[in-house]
């Protein structure tokens, strides 16, 4: 099989989908996104802290600093347009001793040099009033009011949907193994045949170094830096109203405690360099490490209400900065896009789309389709809105996930979106069915049934997360 496209994007993470959207809105070229997993946002984009960083962490003058600050500014508008949960709750980087104080003073300086607005240092007494559950041993903290939280995978789903509405195509279960230059552009080699394209963008996350080194003489090296997390059920009262960081270390931003946009509490991550970039398992040591470190910020922490744990892989470039831009003729890239990659992605996508269009001479798009936000979740509606929702679609009257209060209409909508869910996990992340305290114990059988019905497949063909991850092995 041979496929042709104008622009091939390798990797359907937040960068690939943001870029696909920008390109599909701005130019008339065909856009194809090739993804090795079964869905978008299956790599680092789904398993990270979900923080829109203010931009004080990166050294002035780096790509990380520049794109972070730009990206953070774009977030409110992008999320509002796409209907993605985003809240600017602010962040505190807490100092627990005088050495930490000098660290946050440096961060303040750095942040101001990067152009981050509103930064200030808060002293102990005020700090404890702001966050009463904080360890009283805290000396002071750097406050970053523009720091925000976002549902990272929901952002990617919305970006992908909007791209698809504007003609971008997605090819799943398709791993690009090699890039070969041709007279007209590039030939991307996959197990199912070649994809010919005029230009290619390598945003393959942890897999991006291999492709980079095929097309460029300046070799790069990526380290798989795993981060493990615990997630707590939504408490009646959140322990902290802001994202609480500890002082950064040379391995990363340290362990945080943060509310999520859905009211859960996120704890983590660890930072461990591991040999296998696909090993997203959690370990007893890693989780113990998270619990121990979190207690420095939050001495009252208890894992009694934990709903799950997970880990994600940061694609860390050994020199520490993003590698973005043109890698070879007709070939662009975003390599080593670790934190603040999520924050930086809208800025990178806008910038790179412009470059690609100018460089390749693609014509403008004639008709732009606006996004179709998924709308307010049933769970967040007022009773009046809920009544109206059921009147409009009786399927909203059928609750499937009792923990997160998700209706059958919402599950079917998640499957019917332009880039719809095809797996149990895909449904879960799109509409939260199975995200709650019973972790799908009650609703998984029903979700499998609905997926089978919508996709026209037998229930035994439904997977948890693609590949061979079948939920069922056969009939009795």
């Amino acid at each position, binding site marked *: 099989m041979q496929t042709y496209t104008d622009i091939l994007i390798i990797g359907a993470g937040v960068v690939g989908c943001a870029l696909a959207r920008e390109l599909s809105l701005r130019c008339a070229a065909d856009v194809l996104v090739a993804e090795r997993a079964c869905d978008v946002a299956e790599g680092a984009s789904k398993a990270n802290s979900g923080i829109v960083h203010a931009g004080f962490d990166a050294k002035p003058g780096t790509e990380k600093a520049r794109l972070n600050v730009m990206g953070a500014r774009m977030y409110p508008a992008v999320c509002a347009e796409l209907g993605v949960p985003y809240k600017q709750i602010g962040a505190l980087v807490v100092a627990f001793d005088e050495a930490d104080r000098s660290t946050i003073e440096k961060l303040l300086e750095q942040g101001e040099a990067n152009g981050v607005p509103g930064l200030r240092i808060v002293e102990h007494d005020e700090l404890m009033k702001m966050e009463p559950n904080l360890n009283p041993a805290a000396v002071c903290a750097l406050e970053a009011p523009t720091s925000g939280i976002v549902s990272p995978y929901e952002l990617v789903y919305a970006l992908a949907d909007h791209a698809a509405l504007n003609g971008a195509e997605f090819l799943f279960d398709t791993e690009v193994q090699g890039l070969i230059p041709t007279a007209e552009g590039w030939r991307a080699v996959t197990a199912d045949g070649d994809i010919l394209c005029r230009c290619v963008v390598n945003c393959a996350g942890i897999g991006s170094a291999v492709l980079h080194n095929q097309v460029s003489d300046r070799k790069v090296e990526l380290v798989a830096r795993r981060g493990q997390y*615990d*997630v707590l059920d939504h408490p*009646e009262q959140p322990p902290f109203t802001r994202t609480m960081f500890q002082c950064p270390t040379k391995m990363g931003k340290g362990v945080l405690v943060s509310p999520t946009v859905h009211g859960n509490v996120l704890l983590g991550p660890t930072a461990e360099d591991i040999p296998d970039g*696909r090993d*997203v*398992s*959690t*370990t*007893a040591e*890693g*989780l113990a490490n998270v619990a121990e470190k979190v207690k420095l910020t939050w001495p009252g922490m208890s*894992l009694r209400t*934990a*709903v*799950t*744990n*997970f880990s994600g892989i940061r694609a860390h470039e050994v020199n520490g900065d993003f590698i973005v831009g043109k890698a070879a003729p007709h070939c662009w890239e975003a390599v080593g896009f670790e934190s603040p990659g999520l924050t930086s992605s809208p800025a990178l996508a806008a910038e790179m789309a412009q470059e690609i269009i100018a460089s390749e001479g693609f014509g403008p798009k004639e008709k732009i389709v606006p996004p179709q936000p998924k709308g307010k979740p049933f769970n967040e509606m007022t*009773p*009046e809105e*809920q*009544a109206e929702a*059921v*009147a409009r679609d*009786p*399927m*909203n*009257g*059928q*609750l499937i996930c*009792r*923990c997160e*209060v998700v209706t059958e209409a919402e599950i079917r909508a998640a499957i019917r979106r332009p880039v719809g869910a095809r797996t149990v996990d895909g449904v879960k992340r799109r509409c939260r069915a199975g995200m709650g*305290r*019973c*972790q*799908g*114990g*009650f609703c*998984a*059988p029903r979700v499998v*049934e609905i997926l089978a019905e919508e996709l026209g497949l037998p*229930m*035994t063909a439904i*997977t*948890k*997360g*693609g*590949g*061979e*991850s*079948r*939920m*069922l*092995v*056969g*009939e*009795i």
Partner: protein
Amino acid sequence: MNTIRKELVIIGGGPAGLAAGIAAREAGVEDLVILEREHEAGGILRQCIHNGFGLHRYGEELTGPEYAARDIAKAEELGLDIRCDTTVLSVDGDRRVTCVSRTDGLQIYEAGAIILAMGCRERPRGALGTPGTRCAGVYTAGAAQKFVNLEGLMPGKRVVILGSGDIGLIMARRMTLQGAKVLACVELMPYSSGLNRNIVQCLQDYDIPLYLSHTVTDIRGRERLEAVTVMEVDAKRRPIPGTEQVFECDTLLLSVGLIPENELSQRAGVELSPLTSGAVVDDTLQTSVPGVFACGNVLHVHDLVDFVSDESFRAGRAAADYLKGQAPKGGTLAVRDGEGVRGVVPQKLHPDQDVTLMFRPAGVYKNASVVVEADGKEMARKRAMIFTPGEMVALPLKAEKLAGVTGDITVRMEVR
């Protein structure tokens, strides 16, 4: 939006809700409704196709569907209004119940009394904090039971079971009979909380080894489960290095505890007990919110459905009394857990009423007695050759014994 006045709203149409509804109607409550979120009444009994239910209540061993069918038939005979496919979204302290269904949309019931009968749910993997990958093939025993018994679908072929509670044991046999290979049943504690009958007939009959004082410490598999690591634990339940055993399997079933489903109760302002995870109730099963009662597994996790029914009949009658203004008056005495006793229900009682105290022993006690005391004197005692956490203890206490008591009542285990 529709607002409806109802004398009594019962949340949940499982064995607890059905029994409560039957008793309330028989006690004269005409205007009542049972709200059930599933497509049929009967609750978890629908998927419990094995026999062993009803020995106390009927003197025979029924299967789950048969036990439920008897209550459903009785409810139908009494003309009870059971609304299936109806999910309650919220209950507030003023006894307003908001629910939703396809057919009736969003409705608000303003209830004279409410009986909470939502049952319980299983502890999932996340609550255990077991590390590893998040592959397919890890299910709670109940979810697997639903797949097999209600959908006729097999969740796996090579199975390890974590937890030796009765559901786990029953599923070991069930999966085996349907052609799966069950490699092991792994129990963290040094004893099983399951019935001996189930250990013999579900494990030993099929040569399935039971590993006591062991746990699953790692879950491996990129897509579908490929293996689990099992380790022995020490007296403090910490894995002992060097005891790792790897079982290659495609399925891990979790039977690691049940938790009363009290999210609705909590939002209604009902006080919960950290010991039972259910409501704090008095001897009429009334919660801290006046007119709101609780019974069955939402109140405390029972071992036998017969006791659920019994307790729920009492809740139904108590709600009827409350609606008629005949609830017991006067102050209550507090009931406290003493040594070896965990989560006595009720936690408060009126001294002029007969009551049955129920609880689970905190450990295994042989040749022991349960002693009920107040004001320094013994009021009741029950001896047995053995008490185990798997078996609930029910201790009736006559009102006459309580006459004149003013202090707290303590229930404790005494080993001679």
